[in-house]
């Protein structure tokens, strides 16, 4: 008997997710190579030096990074043009937090994933998690960071791109801050990304969620257990 499935992602959602992930990977690899200053470079000067000689110099690396960055922004423009409704739904879900339900969920989930249910019981806590909606609080927190971070990264990236094309010397204070904010925003989103990739691709709990990023659908029982409030809505047709 075919399992009951629920639609979770549109084709355009799946496209933008993997397109974004691929861009991020390449932008991270090239971007870290563009930092060369002992006070800030994350892995010392060996990595930037090696990468620069691989692509034929720092100038080429900058051009590659800029080209991928522009492509990344165009990808999002394309997504918004195709599925603006989906983006609005996503933003509404991600930025709707109900602290009474979501904060205990976040705390308990962190303890469960690292120390286990016994630890929660020792603390006198019920190891059952509060019900969650379309996204759980962990997903929402990461999505919030990557949306805010992504906007900062894109805007500051464009400022830097235009720095030696249109801006004059009077704009250097703004450009200097664009450099710093670009760096900080990438760092913060990257920290979240480690957990995101673990939860999505490595942790067995979210396997059906992982598959949904290719197929677009999740099984009924997965939805019921992981996204109960969303499941309720889908069941009653009140999505």
């Amino acid at each position, binding site marked *: 008997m075919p399992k009951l499935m629920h639609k979770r992602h549109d084709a355009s959602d799946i496209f933008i997710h993997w397109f974004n992930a691929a861009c991020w990977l390449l932008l991270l690899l090239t971007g870290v190579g*563009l930092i060369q200053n002992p006070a800030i470079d994350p892995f010392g000067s060996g990595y930037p030096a090696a990468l620069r000689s691989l692509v034929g110099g720092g100038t080429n690396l*900058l051009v590659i990074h800029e080209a991928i960055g522009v492509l990344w922004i165009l990808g999002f423009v394309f997504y918004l043009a195709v599925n603006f409704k989906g983006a609005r739904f996503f933003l509404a879900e991600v930025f709707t937090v109900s602290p009474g339900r979501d904060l205990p969920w976040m705390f308990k989930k962190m303890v469960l994933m690292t120390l286990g249910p016994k630890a929660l019981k020792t603390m006198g806590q019920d190891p059952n998690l509060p019900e969650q909606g379309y996204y759980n609080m962990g997903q929402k927190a990461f999505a919030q960071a990557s949306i805010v971070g992504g906007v900062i990264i894109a805007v500051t990236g464009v400022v830097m791109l235009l720095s030696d094309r249109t801006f004059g010397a009077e704009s250097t204070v703004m450009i200097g801050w664009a450099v710093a904010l670009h760096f900080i925003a990438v760092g913060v989103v*990257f920290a979240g990304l480690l957990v995101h990739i673990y939860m999505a691709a490595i942790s067995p709990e979210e396997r059906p969620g992982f598959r949904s990023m290719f197929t677009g659908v999740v099984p009924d029982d997965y939805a019921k257990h992981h996204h109960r409030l969303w499941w309720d809505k889908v069941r009653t047709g009140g999505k």
Partner: protein
Amino acid sequence: MARQLAMVIDATKCIDCKACVAACKVANKVPEDQWRNWIKHENEVPRVGAAGGGKARFQPGACMHCDNPTCVAACPTGATYKDAENGEVVINEGLCIGCGNCIPACPYGARFRNAEKRKADKCNYCPERRAHGLEPACVDTCPTKARVFGDINDPQSEAGRLYLANKDRLKRVAALTDTKPNMYYLGDLGPEAWGGEAVVPASMVAMKQSAPLIKGIVALSGLGVLAMLGRQLLAGSDHKEDGDA
């Protein structure tokens, strides 16, 4: 010993004719109202026969290709760096985006943002001329030969000979930030206050200060992932995933 290209300048020979300033501007196509080098002099014009000798004091200068280049420390990308081969402080124009961090970081005011290229600019010892065996434009043109250019670690070069012979009496511009400049002066180069202070823009300071913080949160996040992975491998999943059966 590694090469160190430098200038040894006899300040007493300088007559403030500004030929070096004009030659540099032409040779390097420096935009209007911008200069890569200078001759500084005291505000009061010395009077012949006045008390105190009325001696003119001029300071011909430009980028001093310092041993402790504060401009390099202010550059996030290494677009400006100190060449290990010849000690020159170089700007890679392909990598520089003109963020401007290095400009206030030079206590001598030797850097500016080129109005046409929109990138950092300064003296580079005329590499195109050197490639053809010529001296930098300012040195070539100086009518009194006040500017001498070369590798000060090479006793065969004129600059090296001057440098070694006068080591104890050579002066450098005394900036508030000690950048160990490679521009040496014979004779009186005028007020000490000609060198200023290296100022690193607040945005670069913020970046430097946030770097260890960011490493910290990435490390924390990585530790969290390791803890989850460890638990997954040791204890297995706590609940059988129904949807995954």
